[in-house]
């Protein structure tokens, strides 16, 4: 019953929206799609800032249906806008405290905790006018969290920031994700952000929801545009199995295989997220004997899609039987034909690059 369930239909301005999805009310759910596809409209409807016909319930709590429409201020949300939208006449401290209920129950998100987590202790007495873009956005996140939301809505909180500032804030977001048990809906049009943060994905296009589900499943779904895009990749949740101090390589295990990844020391047994680009995975019929590629995994071809640019995107299942984690591989049509590859064949997946995209977090 613990889900975020949404079904909105109607027009906002010139814009038609027909958005329906249901995702678990835990972890980060990214709403992903190109600019202007209705992501923000959906989020504003969930918050009650816009009103369309439809339904919205969070963990069984009905916020909107045919009979009810709960006003914004009675919905237990936190909303982080694209522009921080701080109150310019209040200090950072008073901005943070604006939505903070006077007394807090046990388990509440504490002021000192948030200030520490977001690194904003030295800004407290300043005016929002004298903050950098990144600082402002951190304060806005803290302000939303201190209102003790049951659902955090983040509308491209990083889009107004430059790359350096983004890189400065992303670790804070990852810390939040690890430290708080608070479901987050996160709008983004940047797949790199999504791969770092999201657990579930809602894929939008032209005001409609194409698909929703776990990130790794949607990434590996060849019927969706994600798997065929230029920067197609899969995200794999892996466990740290071994750490070799002498050559700086760690072994991380996923279903049906394991990867060697160069990294700073990792704690054994922790979960990390790996990202493997489709373009970084090539295929061989026999085990290559001598190669600089350290990650060669046995896999089976599960499904393929030929693309207009004479290339083939293949979905692989790791392991001899192909029942393990999914990988995408992109090869040219020519090599595909020369090797006589086809669905069902066992292959060796040569993985040229593996990226660690998420900070360490304890095993749940």
């Amino acid at each position, binding site marked *: 019953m613990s889900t975020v369930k949404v079904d909105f239909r109607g027009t906002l301005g010139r814009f038609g929206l027909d958005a329906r999805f249901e995702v678990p009310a835990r972890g980060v759910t990214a709403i992903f799609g190109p600019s202007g596809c209705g992501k923000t409209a959906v989020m504003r409807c969930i918050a009650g*800032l816009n009103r369309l016909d439809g339904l919205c319930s969070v963990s069984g709590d009905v916020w909107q249906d045919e009979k009810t429409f709960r006003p914004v*201020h*009675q919905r237990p949300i936190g909303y982080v806008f694209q522009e921080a939208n701080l109150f310019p006449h209040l200090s950072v401290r008073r901005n943070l405290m604006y939505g903070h209920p006077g007394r807090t129950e046990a388990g509440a998100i504490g002021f000192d905790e948030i200030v520490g987590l977001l690194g904003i202790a030295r800004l407290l007495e300043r005016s929002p*006018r004298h903050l950098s873009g990144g600082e402002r956005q951190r304060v806005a996140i803290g302000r939303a969290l201190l*209102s003790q939301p049951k659902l955090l809505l983040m509308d491209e909180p990083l889009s107004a920031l430059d790359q350096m500032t983004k890189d400065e804030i992303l670790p804070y977001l990852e810390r939040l994700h690890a430290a708080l048990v608070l479901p987050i809906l996160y709008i983004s049009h940047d797949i790199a952000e999504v791969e770092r943060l999201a657990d579930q994905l809602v894929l939008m296009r032209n005001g409609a929801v194409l698909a929703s589900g776990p990130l790794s499943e949607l990434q590996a779904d060849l019927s969706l545009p994600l798997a065929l895009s230029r920067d197609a990749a899969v995200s794999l949740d892996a466990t740290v199995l071994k750490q070799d101090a002498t050559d700086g390589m760690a072994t991380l295990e996923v279903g049906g295989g394991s990867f060697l990844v160069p990294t700073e020391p990792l704690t054994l047994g922790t979960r990390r997220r790996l990202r493997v680009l489709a373009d970084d995975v090539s295929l061989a019929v026999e085990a290559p004997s001598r190669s600089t590629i350290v990650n060669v995994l046995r896999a089976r071809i599960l499904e393929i899609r030929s693309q207009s640019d004479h290339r083939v995107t293949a979905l692989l299942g790791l392991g001899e039987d192909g029942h393990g984690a999914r990988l995408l591989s992109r090869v040219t049509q020519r090599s595909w034909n020369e090797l006589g590859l086809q669905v069902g064949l066992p292959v060796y997946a040569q993985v040229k690059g593996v990226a660690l995209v998420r900070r360490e977090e304890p095993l749940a």
Partner: protein
Amino acid sequence: MNLHVSADIWQPVRLTLELAALTTVILMLVGTPIAWWLARSKAWWKEAVAALVAIPLVLPPTVLGFYLLVALGPSGPGGALASLWGARTLAFTFPGLVIGSVLFSMPFVVQPIRNAFEAMGEKPMEAAATLRASPWRAFWTIAVPLASPGFLTGAILGFAHTVGEFGVVLMIGGNIPGKTKVLSVAIYDYVETSQWTEASVLALGMVVFSFVVILTMMLIEKKMTKSAS
């Protein structure tokens, strides 16, 4: 020229300040919700209301005064209202003057407050709502402080404009010392009766007063644009 200034010169001054102060207070109370509605409503006919509020800007004061005289008189709604406390009419009374001033100075108060609310935009109010603030709390803690320069401008303009009004007062107030004889009427009166000293003292006072008002307004505006950037 007679340098002796008659003592009752201060009576119209005091009456004017009383009238302007009371009018300003009433205008803040009445004008703020109107300005809020004009700034936020999406009703198609709201500009018609805005035009109605702004009419005294272009209407000859005597026209407004004429209608007010009819409305406040014994056979108008003002007369009905006055009969509640046993009076016959609101015309030629201080309350009548207040009503006239409120209507006449309304645009000078509503417009700056409306502009300030509009300049603030929807965003701060939306942020407040997502932080569990009721519309009432958000209005007082966010909208009013953010629009405070507009309130200040509106109050100053409303006060100053009431001090300077002449035509409407003459139409509905007449010239009753201590009751309806305000500054501008007094100056006119002194000139009529060739009391040039009194007239020039009051006139010079008005010049200084107006200068201070305009200067203050400009300084507020300057401060506003500075803090907005």
